């Protein structure tokens, strides 16, 4: 036995087997692994059963939305994050950024303990030393103490405030995407300094002025859920969505109409629309007079959008009721952003949406805004801050260098950072006190009025950090004096005391922990009055003299740059461009033609403030007079995944003048360099070329219950691909013989005989926004390794689930349209991959799955070559070994095997979840119920676009979804009989227009 377990390599194995009879003995063991040890617990935890997940409720801290989490832990470590179905904000779904929180938890760059800068070098110190230093410095600062915190509103914030107060200092709360213009506008128009809630689900007409509510604006999961509810086709209707902005972000690509407005002119358009709405519906005289000058004609001049279009949209908006207009995204954050938000306030007010879809009183969490940070920086530069504590904020990176925060920081004698990894700000500090990750600590958040989320430690800390709350309390006890009132033993006690009023006794506290917090009912919408109708619709001035306006944008994956150190988010293609792992410059095709630039050419962008270089990406969803660059790249610290990757567009910006960072403020010079690089994008062919992959139909047809074929016929198009008569005969014969279609029972032989479920999926393309949350969920669930930039360039990414994005139109003056299709293994009944496998690794399971037996696979790749959907992915290298480095490997899902080099892998329909549910049902002596099996992608989807279940169960939801008239299969004509049904996207276009335009997909 001992001999059998020795590790032997392949060559030695062959030698032994080939030359000696002893080879048989070696083979018989089939265990060539090392001696395995079984190390028992000293004391078995009562709530952990090995092999059975333990779930904890928690709260996501990745952005200010405060979504509820269910954390799946196995053997004492968190392996998957899912949304908490009870949470009113996310209702069970979770975005890619939220899911990637696990990669912040297990990030290899996490600091191993407190460190002090001594002579320019970092030296590890003990926690006692660190706390003593902090207490001493704060005590000696004579009130000149400041805290810059990005922590959410909550009990920790209270503690920070008390600590700073005892030290005679102050706390500035700040997040880079703080929606300052929106709050300022609300203060002006309605006298309320607040971020209201927006009910997208209720809106019949959504008008967005640069508010990329599906990218980075507001609580994304809630927005998307609402958007899918209103804009997804149901009961013969759907809301209309018009996006007004220079660049069609993902939000714009999901609009029925994108109006490419000149940068800065969004306010003029909004005012003109309000003007029309008031003419239609009437309104206070004050409003009418304020809007009198803002005619559609004037707006046309400023924005380039025809007056007739503005008038039409405004009339539709007025008639829809209730509608919803939103503004204030990053790509429309220019010097006139406050005016824009105020204009949109008037528009909502005139249309009667306030209190209907714009709900004041919800009081969404926000920081103090950039103005407060600027004031703090001024104090710091003036030497009035002796000790600065930076908590969950990275202003040195996330603010333009010209804002001077870094320079002001240098003037502070003692800087402390609680960052988990060494970021740009922490690198300039003197003392590092790495906090615990949100999944390792006690915490809470109050993301909106009446809603409190709790965090509890779900596992032992990955690195020996210390809760910043504990650090502060210990430092306070050491410092004494004014700090004496901070007497809680630790932060857990402090938190529990704060919750005592909310939950009552221990039972209430435990109930809140189990639930995830105190999810009270949303407060009734506060009645608001128009305080001021004054808005100047002037075009904001732009700095510089370049040919293009620089429109930076924030991406769904990287957000403000906090996602850049997580390989899941780097490998998850940007939903719009499909680019992975590097930054880019977007250029309109016309501009590219004018400059003679092709994709991948390195462009140099220059403003008065700086220069950056990045490869060009030709993007039709952009005005020709603008270039757009994503935020979040160009880190100089923040761990090895982020460091030195791409360029930071903030380097092109000047010092912010007002109370917020005007991202759109520069004209930029675009120069060609002689450099070129291949863009690492996962996009194959950007157009469908008549293949009918992403089908769509006009609303009128969908309402009539047309199928895709009927819609095409009604629009005057032949079906996109016609089988010849011979093929049709063959297919009919096959169906008769193999499927037994005539009696509807199907033929089942051998292992396939008997009662089995038949797993199937339906994807509603009228709900899918292309956000790619499912992609990250799939990576997290199925131990999919990321392959990195070089391998993506070779097309070797392993994304079992991918979102394909196809362009329609965009030529001959037609508007450009994007269609998103999530593509995973289609689990074909008549799968082309199966018969070509020489070792039967690809085969069909009795329950209708296309199985892939990794241990049988010898890597011929015949299956991949024969797959018409290209959903089989080959492990060209030991990707898993390279990707899952310590401690990222702790995240691996024990229920799914990690695939080795040379193995073909693909979507399994989360077969381990199916088997797990079957095990559970069997133990409970009950049949599997509809909804017992939820795939990872389905679970994560904020739009609820994916349905999964047993197609043999007549009452299953998936069966109902598959019977939808819009249902179709991709590449139906090749008769592979996929188990995934897509429901065609529904568009707000006139059928006649559809016909005249050539119908997009039907050429």
């Amino acid at each position, binding site marked *: 036995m001992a001999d059998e377990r020795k590790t032997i390599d*392949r060559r030695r194995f062959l030698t032994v*087997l080939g030359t000696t009879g002893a080879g048989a003995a070696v*083979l018989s063991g089939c265990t*060539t692994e090392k001696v395995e*040890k079984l190390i*028992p617990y000293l004391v*078995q935890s009562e709530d952990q059963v090995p092999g059975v997940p333990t779930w904890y409720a928690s709260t996501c801290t990745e952005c200010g939305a405060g979504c509820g989490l269910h954390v799946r832990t196995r053997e004492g470590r968190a392996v998957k994050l899912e949304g908490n179905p009870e949470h009113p904000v996310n209702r069970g779904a979770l975005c890619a950024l939220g899911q990637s929180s696990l990669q912040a938890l297990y990030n290899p760059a996490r600091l191993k303990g407190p460190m002090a800068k001594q002579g320019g070098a970092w030296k590890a110190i003990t926690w006692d030393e660190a706390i003593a230093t902090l207490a001493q410095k704060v005590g000696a600062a004579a009130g000149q103490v400041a805290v810059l915190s990005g922590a959410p509103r909550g009990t920790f914030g209270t503690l920070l405030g008390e600590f700073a107060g005892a030290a005679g200092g102050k706390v500035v709360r700040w997040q880079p995407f703080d929606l300052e213009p929106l709050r300022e506008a609300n203060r002006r128009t309605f006298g309320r300094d607040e971020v209201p809630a927006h009910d997208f689900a209720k809106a019949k007409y959504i008008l967005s002025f640069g508010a990329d509510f599906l990218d980075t604006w507001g609580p994304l999961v809630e927005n998307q859920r609402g958007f899918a509810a209103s804009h997804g086709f149901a009961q013969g209707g759907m809301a209309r969505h018009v996006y007004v902005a220079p660049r069609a972000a993902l939000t714009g690509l999901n609009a029925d109409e994108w109006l490419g407005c000149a940068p800065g002119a969004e306010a003029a358009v909004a005012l003109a629309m309000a003007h029309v709405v008031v003419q239609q519906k009437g309104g206070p005289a004050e409003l009418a007079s304020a809007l009198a000058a803002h005619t559609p004609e004037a707006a046309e001049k400023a924005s380039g959008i025809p007056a007739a279009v503005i008038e039409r949209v405004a009339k539709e908006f007025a008639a829809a009721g209730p509608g919803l207009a939103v503004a204030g995204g990053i790509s429309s954050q220019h010097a006139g952003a406050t005016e824009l938000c105020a204009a949109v306030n008037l528009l909502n007010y005139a249309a009667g949406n306030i209190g209907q879809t714009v709900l004041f009183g919800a009081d969404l969490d926000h920081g103090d805004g950039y103005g407060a940070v600027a004031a703090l920086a001024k104090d710091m530069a003036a030497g009035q801050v002796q000790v600065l504590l930076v908590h969950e904020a990275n202003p040195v990176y996330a603010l333009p260098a010209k804002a001077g925060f870094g320079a002001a920081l240098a003037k502070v004698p003692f800087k402390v950072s609680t960052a988990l990894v060494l970021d740009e700000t922490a690198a300039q500090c003197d003392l590092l006190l790495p906090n615990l990750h949100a999944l390792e600590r006690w915490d809470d958040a109050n993301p909106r009025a009446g809603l409190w989320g709790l965090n509890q430690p779900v596992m032992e800390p990955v690195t020996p950090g210390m809760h910043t709350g504990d650090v502060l309390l210990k430092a306070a006890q050491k410092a004494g004096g004014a700090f004496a009132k901070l007497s809680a033993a630790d932060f857990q006690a402090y938190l529990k005391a704060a919750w005592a009023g909310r939950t009552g006794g221990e039972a209430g506290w435990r109930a809140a922990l189990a639930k995830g917090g105190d999810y009270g009912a949303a407060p009734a919408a506060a009645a608001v009055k128009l305080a001021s109708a004054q808005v100047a619709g002037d075009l904001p001035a732009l700095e510089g003299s370049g040919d293009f306006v620089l429109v930076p944008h924030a991406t769904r994956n990287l957000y403000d740059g906090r996602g850049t150190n997580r390989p899941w988010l780097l490998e998850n293609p940007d939903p719009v461009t499909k680019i992975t792992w590097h930054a880019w410059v977007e250029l309109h095709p016309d501009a590219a033609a004018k400059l003679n630039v092709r994709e991948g050419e390195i462009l140099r962008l220059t403003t008065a403030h700086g220069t950056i270089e990045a490869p060009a990406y030709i993007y039709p969803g952009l005005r020709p007079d603008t270039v757009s660059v994503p935020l979040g790249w160009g880190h100089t610290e923040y761990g090895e995944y982020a460091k030195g990757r791409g360029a930071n567009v903030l380097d092109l910006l000047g010092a912010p003048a007002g109370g917020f960072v005007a991202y759109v403020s520069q004209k930029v010079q675009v120069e060609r360099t002689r450099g070129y690089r291949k863009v690492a994008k996962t996009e194959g062919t950007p157009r469908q070329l008549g293949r009918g992959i992403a089908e769509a139909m006009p609303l009128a047809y969908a309402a009539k219950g047309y199928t895709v074929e009927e819609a095409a016929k009604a629009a005057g198009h032949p079906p996109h691909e016609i089988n010849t008569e011979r093929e049709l005969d063959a297919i009919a014969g096959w169906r008769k013989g193999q499927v037994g279609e005539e009696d509807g029972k199907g033929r089942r032989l051998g292992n396939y005989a008997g009662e089995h479920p038949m797993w199937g999926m339906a994807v509603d393309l009228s709900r899918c926004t292309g956000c790619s949350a499912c992609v990250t969920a799939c990576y997290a669930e199925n131990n999919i390794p990321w392959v990195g930039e070089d391998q993506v360039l070779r097309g070797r990414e392993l994304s079992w689930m991918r979102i394909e994005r196809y362009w329609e139109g965009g030529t001959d003056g037609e508007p450009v349209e994007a269609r998103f299709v999530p593509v995973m293994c289609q689990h074909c009944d008549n799968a082309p991959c199966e018969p070509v496998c020489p070792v039967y690794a690809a085969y069909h*399971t009795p329950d209708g799955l296309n*199985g892939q037996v990794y241990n049988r696979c010898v890597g011929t790749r015949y299956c991949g070559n024969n797959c018409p959907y290209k959903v089989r992915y080959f492990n060209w290298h030991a990707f898993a070994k390279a990707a899952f480095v310590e401690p990222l490997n702790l995240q691996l899902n024990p229920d799914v095997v990690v695939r080795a080099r040379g193995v073909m892998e693909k979507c399994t329909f989360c077969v381990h979840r199916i088997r797990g549910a079957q095990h559970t049902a069997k133990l409970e002596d009950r049949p599997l119920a509809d909804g017992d099996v939820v795939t990872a992608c389905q679970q994560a989807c904020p739009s609820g676009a994916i349905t999964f279940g047993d197609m043999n169960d007549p009452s299953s939801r998936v069966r109902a979804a598959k019977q939808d008239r819009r249902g179709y299969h991709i590449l139906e004509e090749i008769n592979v009989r996929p188990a995934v049904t897509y429901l065609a996207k529904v568009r707000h276009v006139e059928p006649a227009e559809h016909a005249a335009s050539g119908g997009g997909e039907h050429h």
Partner: protein
Amino acid sequence: MRKAALFLGGTAVAAIVAVAAWQRPSTAQTPPAAAVAGKAVVLTAADSAALKGPRQPIFFRHDIHAGQYQIQCQYCHYSAAVSSEPGVPSMQTCMGCHLLVGGSDSANQKEIAKVRESWNTKKPVEWVRVHWVARHVHFPHQRHIKAMGPTACATCHGDVARMPQVYKVNNINNMGWCINCHLERKVNRDCTACHY
């Protein structure tokens, strides 16, 4: 390595035949020094070298625990009926008895002292694993206990109650072992029942 084994498994037919013969399930092999059920013989840790199976850091006698004292398997392997994993008893479980039970003879006393030391020094014993399946195999213990009852363990693990030192009686790492039983009982033999 695994793939090499598979590849060869497919080609070296002669070897396979030899293997199959070698690994035919053997019924209740009597270990050389095992006692008749009821009373275990006295053995010292030094004797364990002559016994089949890997030597363990503590000469834990399944024949005494499960045989002589008839302790149910699931008393220690507590999660076998509810989870894929059978569960390895925590040191606390050992001490539940061995706080009081000190051993009837010097050989046992010596071994039990090691358990107590491990508990006192808070260093769990590192057992050498005898049975495990490859990582691409998922063996749900709970389904098998559910279907075959709580004493079904012996089907794969052999008559542990008569083993002073546990060894691999059946070649559970060969898929034929699984399939034979699944064929006989006419139960699922779909690949993705176990391989995913």
